[in-house]
Structures are given as structure tokens and as C-alpha cells.
């Protein structure tokens, strides 16, 4: 197995905010979603990977090269999309394309053209005249065109319309088919995470969880629909109760045992939606310590 991105005991303090990442290795050919509430530290985490925000302690390696090395040729292997497109207002899409095509030896004109033509990105207009959604699309087209082995996308679909977002997901999934690309994506869109991610990393108040496999995470939760309300306020494993009879559990076996021991009839049992699980984790912050 190859790990293009490896993080070792990373620490960063900015005023009263502290970001701490014990150890994290991102596997090649996977999509990892970085999930957290606003201000949790996702963007800071991405910027540290790009050495735009300097770490206090620890190490970040891209294909074995420290991002703090004087030689920053590792940047040719990463396409990074920040939340906002800064410093580009005076350029047109074509001018930015010329800049990127020169700087990235892996530049793929066909990928850039296909994405920008499909989404009707006006490449001859100055960036300052584009709407936030079109700016995002242009930024994505440029980052896809870089054709790098690592893509880091910070909330790439935040300002995009639904058809463009769907096309983006389809396009990215198609790119992933070759198996040599590694994607790190920060998103608030449960749908993006559901369709794209293989792994999830949660960030809560600067604390970062281990890598969690999406499918295993989903199956470790269970939603029990009971015939009657349980007599206790909290059954083992219960993390949430709705309509008095619907229990969300993060320890399904313990919950099942308790229910059967107490003769509580289960009407239905489901794996909950990923969105519900993410919401619970972000509200409770419990998975961060897993």
C-alpha cells in the first residue's frame, strides 16, 4: 500500500485555537472526506498540508518529502483548491490556464477543456466578473487540468448549482477509476460525502479523529423502531431517541441484547443515513476519540 500523504503528531496553535493531529496516513487511490463544523479547523488543516500555515510541531510528508523542505517540488503533485479564489481577479480563465499549464508538467488539456466546456465556464471573462459559483467551477477546471496525483479540495461544491455539483461528482468518480489518484475533500454536503468518500476524518474544535472507513462507520450505527417506549431514559448504546420509540444506537449489539432481555419488540431495524450519523458525531464529538 502507498501512502502519498502522511502526518505525524502535528500541532498548531493560532491565538486560542489549537489543532492537533496525532498520526494520519492517507492511502493512494482513495477519497477521504474531512468533516467538521464551521471553524473546526478543516481549512487550517489543508493549508498546513500545503505549508501555507506553518506547523509548531510534527511532520507532514508528501510522497516521503517533508513539506518544510527547501525544495518544494512536491507541490507539482498536489492540486489544492482553497475555499476562496484569491489573487486571480485580474486574470481571465485562459490566462490562468496558461499559468497552470506551464507550472504543472502533468497538465491535461483535455481534462480542463472537457470540464470547462461541459459547465459552460466563460474562459475569456475576467475572474472578478464571474459569480461565486462560476469562480468555483473555473477553479475546479484548473485543478482537474493540473492532473496531479493528489487533489485537495476545500468545500469545492459550496457555491455550485445542483447539475454542476452532480457533474463534478461524476467527473471525480471517473478520475478515481484509474486508482492512482488520492483525494482529500472538505465538505458540508452529506451527498458529496456519501457518493465520493471511502474514508472520513472528523475535526472537532481542532481535534482530529483517526481515519474511519465510511461503510464500517455506517454499519456501526443502527436505528431501532420499537413497538413501545422503553421504560428507561437511556438504553445501552442509545445516543438519540425520536418519537419516543425510535432509538439510534452506536453499540447495536448492546442495544439488541438489552431490548431482547427486556422483551421490547423491534418493529424495524435500519442502518441510518450517513447524514444522520455525521450530524450526531459533529453534535456530540464522540468519534473524535475513537
Amino acid at each position, binding site marked *: 500500500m502507498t501512502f502519498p500523504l502522511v502526518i505525524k503528531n502535528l500541532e498548531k496553535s493560532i491565538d486560542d485555537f489549537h489543532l492537533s493531529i496525532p498520526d494520519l496516513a492517507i492511502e493512494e487511490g482513495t477519497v477521504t472526506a474531512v468533516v467538521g463544523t464551521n471553524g473546526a479547523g478543516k481549512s487550517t488543516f489543508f493549508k498546513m498540508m500545503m505549508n501555507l*500555515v*506553518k506547523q509548531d510541531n510534527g511532520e507532514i510528508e508528501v510522497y516521503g518529502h517533508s513539506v518544510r523542505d527547501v525544495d*518544494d517540488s512536491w507541490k*507539482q503533485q498536489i492540486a489544492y483548491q482553497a475555499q476562496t479564489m*484569491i*489573487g486571480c481577479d485580474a486574470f481571465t480563465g485562459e490566462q490562468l490556464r496558461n499559468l497552470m499549464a506551464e507550472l504543472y508538467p502533468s497538465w491535461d488539456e483535455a481534462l480542463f477543456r472537457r470540464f470547462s466546456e461541459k459547465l459552460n465556464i466563460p474562459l475569456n471573462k475576467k475572474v472578478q466578473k464571474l459569480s461565486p459559483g462560476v469562480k468555483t467551477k473555473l477553479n475546479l477546471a484548473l485543478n482537474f487540468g493540473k492532473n496531479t496525483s493528489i487533489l485537495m479540495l476545500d468545500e469545492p461544491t459550496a457555491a455550485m448549482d445542483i447539475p454542476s455539483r452532480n457533474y463534478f461528482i461524476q467527473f471525480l468518480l471517473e478520475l478515481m477509476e484509474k486508482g492512482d489518484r488520492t483525494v482529500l475533500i472538505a465538505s458540508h454536503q452529506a451527498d458529496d460525502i456519501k457518493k465520493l468518500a471511502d474514508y472520513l476524518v472528523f475535526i472537532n474544535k481542532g481535534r482530529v479523529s483517526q481515519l474511519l472507513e465510511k461503510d464500517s462507520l455506517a454499519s456501526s450505527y443502527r436505528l431501532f423502531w420499537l413497538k413501545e417506549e422503553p421504560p428507561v431514559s437511556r438504553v445501552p448504546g442509545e445516543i438519540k431517541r425520536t418519537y419516543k420509540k425510535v432509538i439510534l444506537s452506536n453499540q447495536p449489539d448492546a442495544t439488541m441484547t438489552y431490548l431482547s432481555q427486556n422483551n421490547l419488540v423491534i418493529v424495524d431495524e435500519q442502518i441510518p443515513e450517513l447524514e444522520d450519523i455525521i450530524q450526531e458525531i459533529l453534535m456530540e464529538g464522540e468519534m473524535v476519540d475513537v
Partner: protein
Amino acid sequence: MDTFRKALWLARIEMDVSKKHYLTLLIMAGIYTFFFYLSMPPYLEENIFIFDVFLIIYLVTISFSIKPKTFQYQKMDDDLYGSPYFAMLNQLPIKRKVLITSRFILPYMSIVIGMILALTGTYIFSPELQDAVDPLQLIALIVIWICISISIGGLFPASDPGDEIKRFTFFWSFASIIGFFVGLYLIFQVWLDTGFFKWTIYLANEHTLLSIMISIIVACLVTWYWFRHSQKQVKKIDYLQ
């Protein structure tokens, strides 16, 4: 050499998008030439200080007037002031030396063009300046002023990576500017009983070669200092935006 070649390529890209701003440089050179031409006779006679002040304001403004807004030094987040364009380039696979070198090329080019235009223009229209300097010495005078402009104007490209602005930074910056002009006044008007520009005319006339050499050496040393300052800032600053 490869660093400079790549930096030049980056500067050319920047120049492509800021073509119309070079018109500003021509307009400014024209306005200031007219002002210098008008004020040259009283200045050469009575050392009026305001002439030196305007000459310094001119050399400072030409180094950043050619930049579109997005390339200019501005507030980027709560504490950080810098050039958003630099922050964007810093995300890309561009060697730090190339990136920093590229920031100096266009401001220095506009300084050279701006100074040649203003001083040659003033010389052509002002018989008083022609009497004070011979054509050959005029070359020395232009070189001296290009070097002074580079030394002072280098501050602007050196600031592109950014500065963390603390509570009293603006106060100290303002105080330094005032201090600079007060110092200039005390040294030249009070102590030497001449003007700064007039003193450089004297240097160009009396020590032509020496003043050219010293000006070039000083400009190179100061540019080296600005370059090192830029490198330190890039290593230090957190680009949170």
C-alpha cells in the same frame, strides 16, 4: 540564471494583465515632469524643500502604481496585510527564490522608466537644469536617482509576502515616514544648506563615476536586504485566508 529566467516569465504574465496600468505611469511621469519643470528655477535658487518631498513621493508611487488592485498590498485577514496575488502564487509549484525575484522585476522596471522619463523630460524643458548639469553628468544624475528609487521602492515588492500588523504598526510606520522627512530636512536644509536633489546634482557633477558606483553598490545591497526580508516573511507567515 534559471531563477531569473523563470521570474521574468512570471513577471511577463503579470505585465500582460496590467498593461493599461502602464498608462498611469506615463500620466504620472507627465504630471510630475510638468511640476518639476515649473519648480526647478526657485528650487535651484532657494532649495525649496517641497521639491524634494514631491520627488520622493513620485519615486515611491511609481513602484506600485502599475499594479492592478488584486496585486497590491492590502488587508487579507484580521492581522495579515499582503498581496493576494503573491498568496495565490505561493500555493503553486514555484520556487521561493523565483517567486520573490519575480515580484521585484516590474516595480524596478517602472522605477527605471519613470525616473528616466521624469528627469529627461525636466532636463529637456528646463534651461535652469541644463545650466546646472551637462548631458553626460545627467546620466550620472539619473543613475543616482534610479538607485535611490530602487533602494526605497524595493520596500513594496518586499512587502508582498505580507506583514502581521500589530496594534501600533501603523503608528510606527507613520512615525517613520515623518521621521524620514524631518531627517531629510535637518540634514540637507539646515546642516548642508542645500536640497537633496541639488546635492545629487553636485555629486553627479563633481564625483560622476564614484557616485554612479556607490549608488549601484548601495542599491544592490539594499535590494539584497529586501530580498532576504521577503524570504523570512514567507517562511514565517501563516496564510490563513
